[in-house]
């Protein structure tokens, strides 16, 4: 199946809910889908189009929304970057960890760094940030400044920095 056929199949299956599809170059396809069908769409890609590999999930802060990009691969060759987005004020979306096992880790990473809640996730807990990291500071959001992150980091280690300063 080539890049064009992949897009056509997706459009035939999901119609209007698939948009902005493009083939940027050979083996690189980008497509957007409505957040409501992301699970269904990825399930279809995996089950019917042979996309058995999830390379990673990219989370991206774009103003009022958080964009999620699922990078899936067919035959280790064609990479489809399937995009969707959620509102920043209520960032939640269905977990795909039952469709792609490795998504469990990638979703935890996005949860950690951008604060997106993945519903029905088996264990949506911190993966990268310390356990005591504040709930409302999401390092990869644009409003999180380097100064905020630095000052929060310097609080870790029970005053270890003060000890070094002595």
């Amino acid at each position: 199946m080539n890049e064009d056929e992949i897009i056509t199949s997706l459009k035939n299956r999901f119609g209007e809910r698939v948009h902005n599809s493009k083939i940027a170059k050979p083996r690189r396809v980008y497509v957007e889908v409505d957040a409501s069908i992301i699970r269904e769409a990825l399930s279809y890609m995996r089950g019917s189009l042979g996309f058995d590999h999830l390379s990673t999930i990219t989370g991206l802060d774009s103003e009022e929304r958080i964009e999620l990009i699922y990078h899936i691969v067919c035959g280790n060759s064609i990479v489809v970057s399937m995009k969707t987005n959620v509102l920043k004020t209520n960032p939640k979306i269905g977990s795909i960890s039952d469709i792609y096992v490795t998504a469990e880790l990638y979703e935890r990473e996005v949860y950690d760094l951008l604060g997106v809640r993945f519903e029905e996730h088996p264990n949506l807990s911190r993966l990268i940030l310390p356990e005591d990291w504040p709930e409302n500071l999401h390092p990869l959001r644009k409003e999180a400044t380097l100064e905020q992150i630095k000052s929060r980091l310097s609080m870790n280690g029970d005053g270890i920095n003060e000890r070094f300063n002595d």
Partner: protein
Amino acid sequence: MGMGLMSGSMIKVVIGPQHPALKEPERFIIEVEGEQVVQVTPRIGYVHRGIEKAMENRTYIQNLYLAERICGICSHAHTTCYVQAVEDLLSVEAPPRAKYIRTVIAELERIHSHLLWLGILAHEVGFDTFFMYVWRDREVIMDLLEEISGNRVNYAMNTIGGVRRDLDQEKISKILKGLEVIEEKAKKYIQMIQKEPTILKRTVGVGYLSSIDAVRYNAVGPLARASGVKRDVRKDDPYIAYDDISFNIVTRDEGDCFSRMMIRAEEILESINIVREALSKLPVGDISVKTRLVIPPSETVSRVEAPRGELIHYARSNGTDKPERYKIRAPTLANLKALCKMLTGIYLADVPVILAGIDPCFSCMDRMQIIDCEKKEKQSWTLDDLRRYAREWYQKH
């Protein structure tokens, strides 16, 4: 440590997290019942350096230096993935000669990384003589990399639009000479791995991963190939000069630590041939093109077969000299779920070999705690303790 600690019904063994070498140092809480591993819970992030956030605040040129420092062992894989992404955003292409030089460095890097790993695995099974031989021989490659780039690690060969240093005839003949040495050694290693009882006893049938599970858990690189999954980004999604070079994807069907060892040893031979072919076909011409520093809005997915498997970068530009977003996923994270799968149901004594088996640069996981669930007591174990335990266990069984 005495066996008394192991007498509780369910014990949690905490391995890690200290590990400064990789982007993803890890901690594993391993629950054991008797000597059998029941459940494995990974936790990463202890040395997360916030490189992705840092990249959003730096220019594309500055980020080249950050990319070089994502990994100390496969720094060239990361810069290749990075410059490829930025060049794609800019719609420029590196000159053919630069692509070939990138390929040469990439394969030399794979050879030294695989040698490093073979040594580590030998150390894990208690075969330190092999470890020392392999690491001694690895110096041949390290010297070559230093000769070419000026650096043993973080070679800084890549730049946006090409490479920073050329290869002259003198360097080329030095590389070819070094490869002869390594080829002979690698062939000896392959024989030794297949015959040496110390290695066979500790690796054959250990850490089994079926090909179905390798696909299901999205395993990458030598780990997947050792389970018979024929996937290699160099072949399936070719980049730099791999399209023009003939080489084989080495696969094996055993799916155990032994096959992971054989795969890497055999891949060294393939890499040697790739370097030879690349050098024999080295195109003439420039080694870099001038590029702009401001990049119009665009996006790209860049993939590389790093020594440990599929490496993927995603970049989005926004019309400035800094990226809007830069996402990196290194191979070890991709292999984490497969690793947990392999660790479940095995003997505690096999944990070090299987952990090391995915080549996560785990040599520094250096402190663990045993928590006896019933007594709620904690006791610290070092990796050396676990290794000692493993060796004693194998002497008895």
